[in-house]
């Protein structure tokens, strides 16, 4: 399934590894539950996949060992993933990749990016045009977000000209 960054398809260097399969000596994405048993001396990159009901506190102890956190959206209406991503960024200062997997709509793409997601997996054969367009449709925002760019901080514009 295509992986998008900034609206563009990119290669996915991670391989999803099932619970009991052998970890390759290459970037591997594993369920969060497995990380405790992974050799701490492993050199290749590691990513963890979490469900939308995972508390960020449960991910936090491993953030210095992973370069990818993949957050599942079981249903696009389930907005918990936004809070998880934002908490990883704002509370724990995590700077690696955060990936949305599962049922996300293009209409939620910019929400996701503003909450700290950097990539999204879209279904095979999905029309990528709405995903690209989503980044240009609503460009103005009113509230602070994790991107930290002041231009998006619409409320503070009042400081400049009232």
């Amino acid at each position, binding site marked *: 399934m295509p992986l998008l960054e900034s609206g563009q398809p990119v290669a996915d260097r991670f391989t999803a590894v099932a619970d009991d399969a052998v970890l390759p000596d290459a970037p591997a994405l594993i369920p969060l539950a497995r990380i405790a048993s992974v050799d701490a001396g492993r050199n290749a990159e590691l990513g963890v996949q979490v469900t939308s009901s995972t508390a960020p506190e449960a991910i936090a102890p491993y953030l210095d060992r992973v370069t990818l956190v993949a957050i599942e959206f079981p249903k*696009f*209406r389930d*907005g918990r993933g936004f*809070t998880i991503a934002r908490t990883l960024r704002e509370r724990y200062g995590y700077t690696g990749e955060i990936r949305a997997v599962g049922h996300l709509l293009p*209409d939620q793409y910019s929400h996701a990016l503003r909450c700290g997601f950097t990539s999204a997996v879209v279904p095979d054969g999905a029309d990528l045009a709405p995903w690209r367009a989503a980044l240009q*449709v*609503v460009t103005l*925002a009113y509230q602070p977000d994790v991107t930290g760019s002041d231009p998006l901080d*619409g*409320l503070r514009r009042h400081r400049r000209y009232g």
Partner: protein
Amino acid sequence: MDIADSFAELAIPQQSTRAGIYHYDAYDRAFLQERIAEFRGQVERRLAGALTEDEFKPLRLMNGLYLQLHAYMLRCAVPYGILSSQQMRQFAHVARTYDRGYGHFTTRQNLQFNWIKLVEAPDALAALAEADLHAIQTSGNCIRNVTTDEYAGAAADESVDPRVYAEILRQWSTLHPEFSFLPRKFKIAITGAAVDRAAIQVHDIGLAVKRDAEGRIGFEVWVGGGLGRVPVIGNKIRDWLGEDDFLAYMEAVLRVYNALGGRENIHKARIKILLRDVGPAKFTEMVEREFSWIPKEKFRIDPEVIAAIRAHFDPPPFAVLPNAAATLAQQVAANAAFAAWVEHNTHPHKQPGYVSAVISLKPIGGVPGDASADQMDAVADLADRYSFDEVRVSHIQNLVLPHVRQDELFEVWQALATLDLATPNIGTVTDIIACPGLDYCSLANARAIPVAQNLSERFRSLERQYDIGQLFLNISGCINACGHHHVAHIGILGVDKKGEEFYQITLGGSATNDAAIGDIVGAALSYDKVVDAVETIIQTYLGLRTSAAEKFIDAYRRVGMAPFKDALYAVA
């Protein structure tokens, strides 16, 4: 280049600068255009089959578009209930062009159009945007339009103007990236007056903005109130929240809710259920813990920002006047009908010589909250002439001219009387709140509107209404309680019994400082028994009150349910 800077030169308000409303700047307008373009694209993708109805539904709901029994309904936002006369005229225009010439003002201070076509919805939104109006977040599982006191900025009993913070909340909550797919809808109400006219204790978050002894501004924070099938009074989780931490704290409450609110069962998804399940103490602790690590500086609203927003709500250019007590007294003495209207349909103003005038949308036998396009235009004209271009919508489903000169009140009343908008019944038994009910709503179990009309007819005599005194009677057509029946002195809830409309009656509710959920009297009654039942309840009250000064609610609290129940269910 900073986007906000690039709008700086365009920031001159294009609307009348007289009305004390938040005037959109170029940033707000550009945002609105983007949002309309986005929705147009979503409608096109839906029509092309690229979005399933399941996927499209939350998107259209966040743009105010419901599918009702007979047609789409467009719920337009009236941010915290404030409209300029120009905006009211635009509502009239949309009513004529895209609907059937009327609209329905709601308990959330919004305006609903009931006969919208899906293909025309983006055009209707574009027409609304011409007057800086929209339907953003009037529905869906997101932070809804913030509501407040209909006399905000005018009321004599106000200590801090809540509009400033309502506007900050509007901006903060608009397309919030984290909180647009919540477990369920989320409603915030704010008051700044001694008397709570915003029903803050029955909202997901209720805020009372106030000053401390040093004059600093802060907030009392109530969480977890709500109506619907589990009516509950909120819990106060903060007695004082400093202005600096206002948004950071809102983020904390919403984050706890977004992470932990129920998502399995739609009926157990509101924040009140989470609060009940974990308990108020634990819930408060969770919010405070979340708040403790939120980057405060990021959410601190600079004093200049608050000052700039407050400037939008500067008082209009009031004339320096004495209170016109003598003139009014003469007019009142000479005209009994005017006297009645002044007594019931005005509210004390903080500015000497002025008063707020309530326009009743509850004519005898009418549909509560409905206004025709012609009435909207006429109200807009009156607002231009007598109230600094400004109109308010109350959660009781009436309109308000907030700033009327006392020495012009008689003219205003005369003009309203010719428009059938001068019914002097504010706060009486005929000032009924009613949801659209089964006449329109796909969720309803029973009709609400004809029940309201029949009750209004039964109690049409003003003499009787005034003898009964203050009485809030609210009707909901289903358990979702859009008609706020739980918090009425007399509440009526429509239920379905094997395909027949039945009505359950509650007594003793209140939506203000002494908020309470009404108690169910007994078995539900059939449609044709409701008016007589209310009559019986009121006769019982009249018979047992200690004097005419004892209001219905006070009498009920004194004597309890028994006399009413006995009278209602006495063996015939």
